[in-house]
């Protein structure tokens, strides 16, 4: 019973996070200018991180934690580099 509650609510949560990923993907493809696409990419990174955490709860393993941490780190670095590129025209001056 309690396992079924957890299973179904995790499925619902993953479904909602998937809808969120589709929304960010729409903005990343359609987005009128470059900054909209970068913002959507940043949001996409965070939603993917949360999806990995729910997958870890669902499969009862802690392997996905390291992957989530890696996604967080790389997302930060990537977004900062892209914002710097928009500002200056080059990443490393």
């Amino acid at each position, binding site marked *: *019973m*309690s*396992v079924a*509650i*957890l*299973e179904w*609510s*995790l499925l*619902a*949560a*993953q479904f*909602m*996070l998937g*809808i*969120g*990923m589709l*929304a*960010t993907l*729409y*903005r990343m493809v359609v987005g009128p*200018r470059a*900054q*909209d696409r*970068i*913002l*959507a990419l*940043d*949001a996409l990174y*965070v*939603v993917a*991180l*949360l999806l990995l*955490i*729910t997958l*870890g*709860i*669902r*499969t*009862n393993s*802690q392997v996905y*934690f390291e992957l*989530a*941490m890696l996604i*967080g*780190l790389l997302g*930060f670095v990537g*977004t*900062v580099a892209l*914002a*710097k590129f*928009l*500002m200056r025209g080059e990443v490393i001056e």
Partner: protein
Amino acid sequence: MIDDLPLWLSILVSALVVGGALLTMAGCLGLIRLHNFYLRIHAPTMGTSMGGGLILLASAIYFTITRERLVVHEMAIFLFITVTTPVTLMLLARATLFRDRVEGKGDVPRRGG
């Protein structure tokens, strides 16, 4: 998935996960609905602050109870995201403001002083 869980644990973790996912989805849908970049930049922060916090808290509680030891390294991710998101979004907003000023489009305020 393991065989049996305490009922209170499953209800608590379910409520936290579904609440966090709802907040994250609302933030991402705001990314579609709002019609200006400066409005849109507010939307995904809902997922990174509250939604992410709830889901990571649910994960920490679940693994603490099922592994019978204190598992709090999800909080490292939460701290990292909470610290870095304002930095990146501030940089992005500054870059956008710079671009809009250079191109002279949009109704952005002029540089003061």
